[in-house]
């Protein structure tokens, strides 16, 4: 962290004129930042806390991939802390896809030839953020779409819009889809369980199996929480003691035999046969049915932390 503007910050200060002051510059090697974005981000957070800034400006990163990731991470952390942030990079920069939902990213050319013009746009946008002005839609303001969508009444009925789109496609004319599916995030498969014979295995289900009466009032759809229930000493889930409250499938089979969704009886049999170490003493439950991906991620992270704390080695997750 250095005081005052450095490098592109000098140009930024020129563009800001008297309206704003670059009080500090955070400098980091792009390799160091991109190799460990987690700790880089943490350092940015402490630095920001020490600084009392109104806005964070990062980059511009143009087409430099590692720089783009670092800018994106820094701005995302700032935004999450309540400090408005903005960066700029080329459409091809991997930082765009990864961070556009978490912070404002302005378009930029592919090389630093566009530096003065980009700094001008960054300065103006930063001032508006600092003044807490209303920022309009990406179509109007020009930043990369953040994937935040609001329902509105458009000019024409949806059926007409759909038929027009069909006409355009049939005629080979250009069309603009109203929805572009975001890419699915994939994770690297975890390494296999080293010693399955001694592994502690937990059951998780999104099938909504709860003790009869739903004592914790687990919601039947749009889930925001998860629960665990004890299965210590149980050889199977007894019908009548458990039920499914899931709103997305016919629950009659699961109610007649909860093991169809939480296969405890089969697990116990294989546990006795030493096919694996032990069944963890509790099972985890939530439901799907319109549950948001962001909620699912949070639920997953929390369950994972609980699994780790209880030294669970592997998980079987049943889905309905």
């Amino acid at each position, binding site marked *: 962290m250095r005081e005052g503007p450095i490098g592109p910050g000098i140009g930024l200060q020129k563009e800001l004129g008297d309206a704003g002051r670059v009080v500090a510059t955070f400098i980091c090697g792009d390799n160091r930042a991109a190799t460990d974005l987690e700790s880089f981000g943490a350092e940015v957070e402490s630095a920001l806390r020490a600084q009392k800034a109104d806005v964070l400006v990062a980059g511009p990163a143009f087409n430099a991939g590692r720089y783009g990731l670092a800018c994106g991470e820094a701005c995302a952390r700032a935004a999450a802390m309540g400090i408005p942030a903005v960066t700029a990079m080329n459409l091809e920069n991997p930082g765009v896809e990864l961070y556009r*939902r978490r912070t404002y990213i302005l378009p930029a050319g592919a090389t630093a030839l566009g530096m003065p013009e980009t700094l001008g746009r960054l300065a103006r946008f930063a001032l508006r953020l600092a003044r807490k002005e209303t920022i309009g*839609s*990406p*179509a109007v303001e020009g930043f990369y*779409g*953040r*994937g*935040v*969508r*609001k*329902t*509105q*009444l*458009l*000019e*024409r*009925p*949806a*059926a*007409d*819009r*759909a*038929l027009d*789109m*069909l*006409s355009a*496609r*049939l005629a080979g004319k250009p*069309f603009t*889809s*109203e*929805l*572009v*599916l*975001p890419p699915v995030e994939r994770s690297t498969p975890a390494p296999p369980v080293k010693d399955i014979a001694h592994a502690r295995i937990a059951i998780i289900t999104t099938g*909504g199996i709860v003790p009869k009466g*739903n004592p914790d*009032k*687990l*919601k*039947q759809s*749009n889930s925001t929480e998860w629960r665990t229930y004890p299965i210590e000493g149980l050889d199977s889930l007894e019908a009548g003691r458990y*039920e*499914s*409250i*899931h*709103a*997305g*499938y*016919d*629950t009659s089979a699961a109610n007649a035999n909860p093991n169809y969704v939480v296969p405890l009886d089969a697990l116990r049999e294989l546990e006795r046969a030493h096919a694996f170490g032990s069944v963890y003493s509790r099972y985890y439950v939530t439901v*799907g*049915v*319109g549950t*948001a*991906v*962001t*909620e699912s991620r949070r639920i997953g992270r929390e369950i994972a932390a609980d699994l780790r704390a209880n030294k669970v080695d592997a998980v079987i997750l049943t889905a309905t």
Partner: protein
Amino acid sequence: MSKLELRTFDIDSVAFGDRTTLLGRALTVSKDELRALVLADPAFSAVDIQLVRPGEAARITQITDVVEPRAKSGGTGGVFPGLVSPVEPAGGGRTDRLRGVAVVTSGEVPWLGTKGLFVAHDSVLDTAGPGADLHPYAGLHLLVFRLSFADGVDHEGLERAVLLAGEKVARTLALEAHDAEPSLVETRELAPPATPLPRVVYAYQVQSQGVFMRSRLYGRILDELVPTLVHPNELAEGALTSGGLGGHGAKMHTWMHQNNAVVEGLIAGHGTRWDFAGVILHRGHFYLYEDKQRVALRIAETASLLGASGAIFTLGGAGNNTTEAMLAIQECERRGIKTVLLTWEHAGPDGSDYPLPFGVAEAVAIVSTGNLDEPLDLPAMERVVGDPAIRVRPEIGGVPFPVDGPIRLERRTLYAGSANPLGFGRTGSVET
């Protein structure tokens, strides 16, 4: 080739009176006659009839179905074949419809202890204010039949009774048009276009996975439906009806099947923009992946057989239902059939989540009717037609949610018609 003469009678006023008659554009409705008609079914213990005129600010609760009055006035067969009329060819001859009035059935359908999927979920619908843009009924006179149910009727019985009640009344009203002067007479026929035009099909997805989440074709439930080809004129006759009393944001009332905006648009463009080859009716939400693949293949093969170059898709539900449509889109695109999907989103309450539960790379043309997860703030209406509280949270036995006065719906699934599944309304999504 199916040729239907469709006569439209615009209704400018509705009033209660001694006898049910249509004079010019004024419809008089006899409460006694219609009450007797409905109560002939022992499933009902009582019925209360109310009228909501266009422009009035009413909140109608616990709607079970909405039906446009239609009746045959020439040719063979009858409307709602297999339910109110015998199973006979539909889509030809002459049919009368009353435009500007709709029959609404409503009531607190007993839950009988169920907690999961097969529940008659309650809904609200406003005829004024911001909610009026979220359904196609705001300009209509709504005759609301508030049903009370007799004891001892099971779910299947309740579902059928409610469906038949609305249809019987709808037909009875339209029969009054027989001697009146129509506002509009159309001949609906998908004649081969004079010049070659691209052939298009409509892949129409409906719900039918069990009681309260059903649709019927010629009166038969569609739980086991293998995709089938239907002529749009059959839809005009009420061959496809609702039966679903559950899940309303996305639910399609019989009125919506009768007046499907996509079908109307395809018919309007037939012979000028395209050659409308037919409707491929299918259900989604199958529980086996192979069943979903079957649906996808049948839709694509049928479209291919018809020589289609384009296919438009709508959904009967989201989540599980989205998979069938997406797989079918994939199969169609692989056969060179260009697709468009009309769907709503579940992008979370703040609109930032993944908008669709499933997708395929081939789904490049999507029209969105907005985010069903967004909260909806509704002002108070001048009156509530039905119970002033609806039931929510069936999974914990049901909790009353008062709906008189201003309300906030945390998600739009409680609001009838809000998913705009057939594209009647102008809802859409704007990226912010």
